[in-house]
């Protein structure tokens, strides 16, 4: 079951940028693309754990700042020849507010 948590205003994240949400399950990077779509994925590159939230956002992908792996924000999969994936989380925007599904993020803390 979803557990939508209002985390911030959409405008709190720069266009083509990301910011981090802390959780007991680790840091989650929340992205805002050029066209105001939002995505939430683990802030940890599957390659060498680079902070994806610090990467350059282009289209629906982010390039990891450490070794230029390109991660698809929608699927969490590494693009191109690289293989790996990160967790993705349900997220949506309503009335300019970003809502993140806390079901897994909060549940893990209870476990």
């Amino acid at each position, binding site marked *: 079951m979803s557990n939508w948590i209002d985390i911030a205003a959409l405008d709190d994240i720069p266009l083509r940028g990301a910011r981090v949400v802390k959780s007991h399950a680790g840091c989650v990077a929340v992205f805002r693309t050029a066209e105001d779509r939002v995505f939430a994925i683990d802030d940890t590159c599957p390659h060498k754990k680079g902070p994806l939230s610090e990467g350059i956002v282009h289209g*629906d992908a982010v*390039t990891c700042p450490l070794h230029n792996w390109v991660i698809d924000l929608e699927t969490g999969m590494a693009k191109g020849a690289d293989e790996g994936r990160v967790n993705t989380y349900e997220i949506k925007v309503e009335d300019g507010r970003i809502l993140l599904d806390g079901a897994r993020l*909060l549940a893990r803390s209870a476990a």
Partner: protein
Amino acid sequence: MSQKLVVIGAGMASGRMLEELFDLDADGYDVTLFGAEPRGNYNRIMLSPVLSGEKSYDEIITHDADWYAANNVTCRFNEAVVKIDRKARRVISAGGVTEYDKLVIATGSASFFIPVQGNDLPGVIGFRDLDDVEAMLQAANKPNGKAVIIGGGLLGLEAAAALNEQGMQVTVLHLMGHLMERQLDPAAGYLLQKELESRGIRVICNAHTNAIVGDGKVEAVLLEDQSTHPADIVVMAAGIRPETRLGIESGLHTERGIVVDDGMQTSDPDILALGECVEHDGVVYGLVAPLYDMAKVLARTLTDEVAAFKAPEVSTKLKVTGVDLFSVGDFGDEHEEIVFRDPGLGVYKRITLKDDRIVGLVMYGDTSDSNWFFDKLKTGEDISDIRGTLIYGSAAAGVDPMAAIAAMPDDSEICGCNGVCKGTIVTAINGGATDLGAIRAVTKASASCGSCTGLVEQVLASTLGDDFVLPAAGGICGCTDLTHEDIRQIIKSRELKTIPALMQEAGWKTSCGCHVCRPALNYYMIAEWPLEYADDLQSRFVNERNHANIQKDGTYSVVPRMWGGMTTADELRAIADAADKYNVPTIHVTGGQRIDLLGVQRADLPDMWADLNAAGMVSGHAYSKGLRTVKTCVGTDHCRFGTQDSTGLGIKLEKLLWGSWTPHKVKLAVSGCPRNCAEATCKDLGVICVDSGYEVSVAGAAGMELKQTEALAKVATEQEVMDLAVAFIQLYRERAAYLARPYKWVAKVGMDWVIEQIVDDVENRAALVERFEISQSVYRKDPWAEQATPEYQEHKWADLADLTLEAAQ
């Protein structure tokens, strides 16, 4: 026996609803229609053509007096309903009390007046009805009238174009970064802005309105940047607000709009609602197509049929004569996109695909196939078979890769060194110079630094057609086939001042580039338009965004600047204190004569900077494609062999150059004598002091490659050293490809040419110094001080949220 139906609001939604109702059951209801306007239903969408003078009011009437009479509708126009008495099932208006069995609310929406001082001054008008149009036309009658439109969305731009057509001086103030940002992406927004500007309309994006000022009537609009825009009228087109007052006051469930179910019924079963005043499934609609769908459903609900409103795909078309624009669906970044640009014709098309189906579409400049695409979107057709030619539309037309070059006017400069324009080259080609060598011999184009070779070849190709075979030149990334040099030349000659503008004019194959091209383009814009272009942090690599060097574990290194490698006991104490306070695990002395604090947590950066700032230190830019260090020896201050004040000169150079952005990093050194303790002869620019003056050399390397510098000039004064250094760096800034160190760039253009440019040509040297200084007026500043503020703390450094504080469910 017929029931009594009262309809509040005589607009397009209720008009269509009545048509549907009478089609289903002409006699089921006795209809009373209230309208606040003194007239019946007209096609509100066509107000723009009325405003521009292309249509008259009579032409846009949809229901005239005869129609209402023929259908036995009792019209109560110019009479607003002030109250709904739900218990007694009656409405109250100026004319008294009217009873109903069923009530339909269709009060539509009102212009949203932004909440600033002066928004109620006479002359501030919305753009919703004929009265607004008449008020605008009256203002347009006055010679040299000025109109300011607040809002660069659909409505605002239609008003702007129409008033411009009526002879007014029009300024559009738009809050967002590009026009119609809800329907268009930045590329299409750029083309639209260009078109409107070519008609004489001023467009200001990122415009924050501070106040509307005037004495008794509107006189000007004041922006947050303190600029003032004179206005005889101000048109509020910043959005609409559902007109929900009656719903709220009568206690109907109302959110942003009056909430209705799938059958358009409100929380009171005898009251229905439709149009812009309602909210269905959390969405409020402002375009006509969904309103007509609502009308169909509501009429069926009234006749006891079961019908359900479903959120439709809505498309947008701007009704400005001569502007072809179409937008539909989700044009956000889905899985895949196909982009087509024809810079010559100003055409931009973008299709977004998901699972081989079209989910979104933006077209600008050529919308001839919009319905063909829209159809495929609505039907969800699998397009995998025609994907290769899909973007060319139903006719699968061809594409000209030379369009960017062909579109250049004849007087745009191709060769900056020798001042050769495209027209001169074309004339030479037509005169028989059909290869690069011949062009160089005849026109001198690309005969100096050679960086425009690619462009000259493309002029050859576009002029000669099939007779010329273009040598394969690699694009800078998968987004373009153009080389760095081509891109720089296009930015300059076509005066492109934003990344979306460049991407459009140069035919980018992606909508917003990638991690390879965006940092390069951001640099080129900064270098070419230092005063006009706003640095885009999101197009920068993490180090230059966070002003620290990211390490393999995600921590950062912090290097304060030590001017000329000099420091003091106080500075060292402050550094040691910072190292203690922020638990710095590693302290390293760098090869550039300063101290590197490694292993700093991201969250500690701003506080650490503030501490270092307080001790008088600034960023060392140890992370930037920019000036890094000026290494020195102690020179005549202490050394037995020193010939000049090498430390003093090094500090002067560093204070002159710091903060500047360059294609790649730049390191300097000044040695006090030929023993060269500062190792100046393997730097990007090195100075060796001698008894009679200074030997300046450039283009050394001591990284992946090892290369000694090459002599540039020997000069007598410190001032000449500084001028030469600045001129060299500025020339490098203006000409080199992004990520090419100076030695690589010099190898390409030749040392002779560099000497010609900055040693022999004294005027050119002075001009380069001047341009550098203009750029430095913006960039010679400490980014640490800038970002160690509460504002940056809140919007950048802090976590967006902390769920560890939330209780588990």
